[in-house]
C-alpha cells in the first residue's frame, strides 16, 4: 500500500467514515503491523494538534478584527488622535454650515494675527538647538583632505557636484536600507561610506522632516548584503539612566561615544525624542544610539547649543511608524524587515562596537546637476 493511500485510509478510519467490514479489515491490519498502529496514533495526535492550531489561528484573527473595529469606532483608544469617526460624522452633519463660517472667519483672523506676529516678534530660539549634520564648510575641508585619496581611488561622488550635507546612518535591513536623519539629506542623492572607507552609491527613498527621519537604499554592485544585523531596533521606551553608546562620523573615521539616557523627553518636552548626555558633534546626526543589550533606542539628531553634552535622539519607536508609513507610499520598501532580536546581549562592548561599526555609514548628500 503506498503512503498516500495509507494516509487516506487512516483519515477515514479516524473520521469514522469506513464501513463496518472495512473497519474490521483495517483493525486486523493495525494489530498485525505495529508500524501502521503507530501511524494511526501519531495521526490522531497530529489531527488534534491541527484542530487546536486552527482554533487558535481563527480566534487570533477575530481578536485582531475586533480590535481594529473598536479602534475605529473609538471604543478603544491607543493614544494619538481619538478616532471617534462615527461621532465626528454626526457632529459634522449637524454643524456643517456653522463650521464653514467659523472656519473662514478663523482663517482670516489667523492670517492677520500670524502676519502681525511675524512682523513684530524678534527672532527667538534660533540657535538654541543645533542639528548635527556637517555643514558645507566642514565638508569642504574634508574634501580637500580627501583630495589625495580621490586620486588613488576614484570617488563615487560625481565630478562637478558639491557635497551639501552629511552625517551618519545605519542599516535597518541587511539588504542595504539605511536610516538617517532627514536634515542630513539636503541634496537629491547620496554616497555612503562604510567604516573601512569604501564608498557606495545610494538613493533617497523616503524623507519625513516632521519625524526628522529618512531612508536611503544602497544601489551599488559593490555592496554585498549582510546576513543579518547584530542589533535590534527597540520598540519600547528606555529607562532613565540606561547606559548608552553611539557610533558616528563627525570626522572621516568612525568615532565611538558613550553616555546615559538623561530624560524621556527631548528639547522643550518633545515626546518624540530622548535627551541624552553624550558628547556629540556635527556629523553624528543619524547615528544609532544603543543600550547595553545592543538594542537601538534612538537616532542621534540634535544637541543644545549652549549646554555641554546635551544631545537629543529621535526615539526608535518612531522608526517603526516611519517605515510603516513609508511602506504605504513606496513598494520597494515592502520587504524591509526591521530586526527585533539583538545578537549582542551580554557580549563585551569592544565586540559590540566592532559588529555595529560594519553597519554604520558616513552619509554624504549632494545635488545632481
Amino acid at each position: 500500500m503506498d503512503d498516500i493511500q495509507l494516509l487516506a485510509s487512516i483519515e477515514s478510519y479516524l473520521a469514522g467514515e469506513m464501513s463496518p467490514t472495512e473497519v474490521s479489515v483495517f483493525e486486523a491490519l493495525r494489530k498485525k503491523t505495529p508500524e501502521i498502529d503507530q501511524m494511526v496514533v501519531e495521526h490522531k495526535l497530529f489531527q488534534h494538534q491541527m484542530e487546536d492550531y486552527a482554533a487558535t489561528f481563527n480566534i487570533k484573527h477575530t481578536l485582531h478584527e475586533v480590535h481594529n473595529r473598536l479602534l475605529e469606532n473609538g471604543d478603544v483608544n491607543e493614544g494619538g488622535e481619538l478616532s471617534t469617526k462615527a461621532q465626528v460624522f454626526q457632529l459634522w452633519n449637524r454643524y456643517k454650515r456653522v463650521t464653514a463660517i467659523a472656519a473662514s472667519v478663523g482663517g482670516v483672523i489667523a492670517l492677520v494675527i500670524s502676519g502681525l506676529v511675524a512682523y513684530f516678534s524678534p527672532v527667538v530660539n534660533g540657535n538654541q538647538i543645533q542639528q548635527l549634520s556637517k555643514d558645507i564648510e566642514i565638508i569642504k575641508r574634508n574634501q580637500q583632505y580627501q583630495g589625495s585619496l580621490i586620486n588613488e581611488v576614484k570617488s563615487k561622488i560625481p565630478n562637478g557636484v558639491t557635497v551639501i550635507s552629511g552625517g551618519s546612518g545605519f542599516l535597518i535591513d541587511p539588504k542595504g536600507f539605511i536610516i538617517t536623519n532627514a536634515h542630513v539629506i539636503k541634496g537629491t542623492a547620496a554616497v555612503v561610506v562604510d567604516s573601512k572607507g569604501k564608498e557606495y552609491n545610494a538613493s533617497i527613498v523616503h524623507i519625513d522632516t516632521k519625524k526628522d527621519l529618512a531612508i536611503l537604499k544602497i544601489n551599488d554592485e559593490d555592496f554585498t548584503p549582510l546576513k543579518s544585523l547584530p542589533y535590534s531596533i527597540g520598540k519600547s521606551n528606555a529607562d532613565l539612566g540606561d547606559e548608552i553608546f553611539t557610533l558616528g562620523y563627525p570626522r572621516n573615521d568612525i568615532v565611538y561615544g558613550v553616555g546615559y539616557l538623561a530624560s524621556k523627553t527631548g528639547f522643550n518636552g518633545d515626546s518624540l525624542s530622548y535627551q541624552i548626555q553624550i558628547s556629540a558633534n556635527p556629523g553624528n546626526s543619524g547615528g544609532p544610539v544603543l543600550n547595553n543589550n545592543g538594542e537601538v533606542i534612538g537616532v542621534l539628531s540634535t544637541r543644545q547649543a549652549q549646554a555641554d553634552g546635551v544631545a537629543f535622539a529621535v526615539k526608535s519607536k518612531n522608526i517603526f511608524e516611519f517605515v510603516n508609513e513609508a511602506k504605504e507610499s513606496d513598494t520597494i520598501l515592502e520587504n524591509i524587515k526591521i530586526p527585533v532580536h539583538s545578537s549582542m546581549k551580554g557580549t563585551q562592548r569592544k565586540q559590540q562596537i566592532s559588529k555595529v561599526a560594519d553597519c554604520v555609514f558616513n552619509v554624504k548628500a549632494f545635488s545632481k546637476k
Partner: protein
Amino acid sequence: MKSEQNEQALLKGLANNDSRAIETIYKDNFSMVQAFVLNNNGSYDDARDVFQEAMIALYEKAQSESFVLTCQIKTYVYSICRRLWLKKLQQLGRFSNQVDNLDETVPVEEDLEIHEKRNAEFAIMDRAMKSLGEPCKSLLEGYYLKKMGMQELAAEFGYTNADNAKNQKYKCLMRLKKLFFSQYNIGD
C-alpha cells in the same frame, strides 16, 4: 443572578469564536488592562499583545467541557494580564513601578502553564506551515483553517477534480507532518 448568566453566555460565545461576544468582552475589559500596562512601563502595542494573549488563554479555558469560571471575567482577565506582563518585564530585565497589591486577583499559574504549552505547540505548527511553501500552505490552510470542502478547494486552486486536489492535499499533509514531528518530538 442575571449578570452571572450573562457572563456564562459571553464565555460560550467566546468559545464559539463569536465576534459579538468577543467584542463585548473586549470593550468591557481592554481599557483596564491598557491602563495597567501603560502605568507599568509598557506601550500601547504591549497592552494589545498582553490583552489578546489573555483572551486566547480564556478562550482555551472556555473551550474545555469541564470549564467553570469561579470568578468574574474581569478578575480573571486582569489576573492573567498582570501575570503575563510582570513576567515579560522580568524577561526584558526592566523593573516595574511597584505594582500595588490591592487589586483583586485569582491564582492563574496553572492555567498559564497550560496556555504556554499550547502556545509552544502553536508556534511549532505555525513554523511548519510557513516553511511548507506554496501551494501546499494555502491548500492546507483552506482545508483546515477555513474548513473549505475538497470540491471548493479544487475550484479555487484550479485542479481538474476533487480527487486530484485530495491527492495533492495528502502529499502536502505528509510533508507537513514530517516538518511538525521533527520539531514536536524535540520539544518533548
